[in-house]
């Protein structure tokens, strides 16, 4: 048992649901108690999704506990198959089903007899893997399932496309800025003259998965999601993959050069050097930003980076290598993949922290006192408490991290966004600091928080007491409205009665 109230990566089933609901016409059925379908709320709220999230629960209740799920799971699968006619139903185990140890595999086999669509059981164990690992595994599982199915039906498309083409693997729902990143990646591929064969799992149809082998190579933009699939495809079809995240100017160039190598090995004659130079020097503003005097002022400033592997590693390199910022600590919560992280960032920071305990990171921030933090929502709040600005670079994230405006983190537009993020975080801190040095806003003493500070109205002790219990941020408004009401009624004293009456009349 461990004491915890904040976690960076969610439970395994969230990963599976993120994959299933990213595909088109795939439905997930969770074997779970009432209330575990919170995923639907998150997707509907954070992504502001217009469609019903294709996730339902086969409810585990007292009866199930006493007698087992029996027909319930099978019935629910078959029912969903008829109602929505999905191409695939993914039965998703949760922590509850992990300990019930029912034979879910058997339920799937039985449901498959009656269901028109395909049915599979997500191969994830709540107690062994987290959200990210489960997502990676589920994607690979679905790809493998449909590759095998196509082989059996002998309609696997193995012939490469005539022109260089790519599968982009690992773009999913509830991924940090994934919807903007994919647009940027598609633009980048188009500029490189590479056609996009398939993007998975984002809005893909499972029927298209048999076309995966047609691409010349796979691009895996995120470390956490898609690598298993890319490795599987490499093993099956000798299809090479590029797993360099094109985040930051240097890494984007490295990614493009890797792509060039991969396709030239297969007979293309691409030379992207001119493109890289043009983009770096003249299209992206990030290289120019590093040279400008704004960035000069950031030299040697201390920063702390914490997040998932992809974003924390990329950010560390950008700050240290491209902006001359002193990264005193870089960390990740992807404990299961810590070696990769160490290897990526060790030359760019003083210290490395691998931890899932938010308290540990908060302590490190407090001790090291950086000028800015780049982390998750949790680090943002630590920053608030310590008065240190924070740029959010990784999940867990809130609704404000699902912007409507175009905000990719990858590619050349991504470098611009990152430059803004970094610069704004630091200048905000500077501005606050300067204000303090020069005595703050000079209006501070003049303006009071309520306009009715010198009131001619008497508040009775009771009413005052009640007013004091109103939350601080609306208290001023309640006070003003009540006094307005009292004046209108020609009252000079505000009693509890008046307070309530005012609320009733104006909703104060």
């Amino acid at each position, binding site marked *: *048992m461990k004491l915890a109230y904040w976690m960076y990566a969610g439970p395994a089933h969230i990963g599976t649901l993120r994959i299933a609901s990213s595909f088109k016409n795939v439905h997930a059925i969770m074997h779970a*108690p009432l209330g575990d379908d919170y995923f639907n709320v998150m997707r509907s709220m954070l992504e502001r999704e217009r469609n019903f999230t294709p996730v339902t629960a086969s409810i*585990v209740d007292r009866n199930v*506990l006493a007698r087992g799920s029996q027909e319930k799971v099978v019935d629910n699968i078959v029912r969903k198959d008829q109602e929505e006619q999905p191409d695939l139903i993914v039965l998703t185990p949760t*922590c509850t089903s992990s300990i019930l140890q029912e034979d879910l595999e058997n339920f799937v086999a039985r449901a498959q007899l009656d269901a028109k669509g395909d049915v599979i059981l997500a191969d994830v164990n709540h107690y062994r893997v987290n959200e990210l690992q489960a997502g990676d595994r589920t994607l690979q599982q679905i790809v493998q399932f449909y590759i095998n199915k196509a082989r059996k039906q002998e309609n696997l498309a193995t012939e490469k496309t005539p022109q260089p083409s790519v599968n982009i693997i690992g773009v999913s729902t509830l991924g940090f800025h994934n919807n903007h990143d994919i647009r940027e990646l598609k633009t980048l591929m188009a500029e490189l003259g590479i056609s996009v064969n398939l993007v998975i799992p984002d809005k893909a149809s499972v029927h298209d998965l048999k076309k995966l082998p047609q691409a010349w190579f796979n691009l895996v933009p995120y470390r956490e999601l898609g690598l298993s699939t890319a490795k599987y495809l490499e093993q099956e079809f000798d299809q090479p993959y590029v797993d360099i995240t094109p985040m930051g100017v240097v890494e984007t160039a490295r990614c493009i050069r890797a792509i060039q190598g991969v396709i030239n090995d297969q007979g293309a004659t691409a030379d992207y050097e001119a493109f890289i130079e043009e983009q770096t020097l003249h299209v992206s503003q990030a290289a120019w930003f590093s040279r400008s005097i704004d960035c000069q002022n950031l030299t040697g400033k201390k920063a702390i980076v914490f997040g998932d592997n992809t974003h924390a590693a990329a950010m560390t390199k950008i700050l240290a290598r491209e902006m001359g910022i002193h990264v005193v600590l870089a960390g990740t919560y992807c404990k299961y993949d810590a070696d990769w992280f160490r290897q990526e960032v060790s030359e760019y920071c003083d210290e490395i922290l691998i931890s899932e305990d938010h308290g540990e990171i908060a302590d490190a921030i407090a001790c090291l006192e950086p000028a800015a933090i780049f982390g998750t929502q949790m680090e943002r709040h630590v920053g608030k408490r310590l008065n240190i600005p924070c740029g959010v670079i990784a999940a867990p994230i809130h609704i404000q991290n699902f912007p409507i405006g175009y905000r990719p983190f990858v590619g050349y537009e991504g470098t611009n966004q990152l430059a803004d993020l970094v610069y704004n975080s630091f200048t905000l801190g500077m501005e606050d600091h300067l204000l303090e040095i020069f005595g703050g806003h000079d209006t501070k003493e003049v303006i009071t928080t309520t306009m009715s500070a010198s009131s001619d109205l008497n508040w009775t002790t009771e009413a005052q007491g009640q007013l004091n*219990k109103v939350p601080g941020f609306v208290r001023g408004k309640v006070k003003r409205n009540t006094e307005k009401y009292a004046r209108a009624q020609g009252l000079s004293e505000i009693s509890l009665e008046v307070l309530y009456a005012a609320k009733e009349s104006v909703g104060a």
Partner: protein
Amino acid sequence: MTVAQETPNLTFDCETGNYHTFCPISCVAWLYQKIEDSFFLVIGTKTCGYFLQNAMGVMIFAEPRYAMAELEESDISAQLNDYDELKRLCLQIKRDRNPSVIVFIGTCTTEIIKMDLEGFSPRLEEEIGIPIVVARANGLDYAFTQGEDTVLAAMANRCPSEPPAPTKEKEEDTAAATRFQKLLNLGLKKKEEAPPVATEQKEHHPLILFGSLPDPVAANLEHELKKQGVKVSGWLPTKLYTELPVVQEGYYVAGVNPFLSRTATTLMRRRKCKLVGAPFPIGPDGTRAWVEKICSVLDIEPQGLAEREAQIWESLEDYLQLIRGKSVFFMGDNLLEISLARFLIRCGMTVAEIGIPYMDKRYQKAELDFLARTCQEMGAPIPKIVEKPDNYNQIQRINALQPDLVITGMAHANPLEARGINTKWSVEFTFAQIHGFTNARDILELVTRPLRRNTNLKDLGWDKLVKEEAAV
């Protein structure tokens, strides 16, 4: 209590129970804030933690007095001893926070592995020297607000049955000041005693109210009763665990929320209290009926309630104009549905369906009767009450009925809005202040918000925002 009779006129239905609601462990979110010296320990898995972390939003960053005791594989396979593990965590909590009570929230997992929380907590309590209250608020048995019910039912057993031995200071405290005055004194200088209340207190049996409400709302309800000469002897829960009210045999108890049936049962059966079966003080109609029923039980002639109610209705007229004649559909997820539907019918709306997770026809009898009577008086059609609804079927019915407003969870709200159906997120009714005469306006503020917003946008032609009608 006599065996409840089926309320005439109302029709009850029960579906599959495939519906969306919050897990009952969410009750820690408001209860830890209400009971200020408590610490809530949710004994469960990452799934529970993830839910709380996301559902509680920014509260999570405010050093909440709750935590997960996260079960790991070694706990599940019993390689570790539950008792020792919990003791270790409790000592850590005691050291860091020193609460007056630790509430263990049992979850689905502790149920399945049959962790004997009730069994070993007395021993643990003795060893660490802090009371431990066990509430099994799990998703196997309960929905959303019922979590509070399980906690309060457990706390009802902890209310002292005798007043504490009167030390000098205590005596002054309990005798000179009512609970209400004490609350007021918290933020004030000791000297400024609250002025004596105008209305005289009448002699009556002690009355305890149960249900967790924000302090201003609780004070407001007490004020309404005080105007009738009714003194509230105590609340379950109180601001501090150490101040739980004395509950003795024969005391009257009244619920303020419709989801507190276990608490009511515990107070009646274990503490031998008498339950005041009344509609709930939601809406001016409900508040008046609630006060009247309490008065009638305590043998007090209520004064001026009709005028008070009429006056509130009058002040609501601007909102009533917006909703009169409109239809509303409750998908059901927090058990407030019957009371809210009753209030909205009185407001002139028609209710197509009342979905509700669980319907206790005994505890809610007075409210159900009031609903039937309200329908009759307003000439409104009798709504169908659907227990354990099936969200999929409900969406079919919503598509067919095209109601003017659907009160639903966040999982369905955006998709319905995109299909041109007005929605109000149901959870807001749980956290907004909706009790008493004074807060009637707040309920209508919530109910009319989507209608007002959409009136503002109505000429833009942006009603339906989905490309292909998904096959739902």
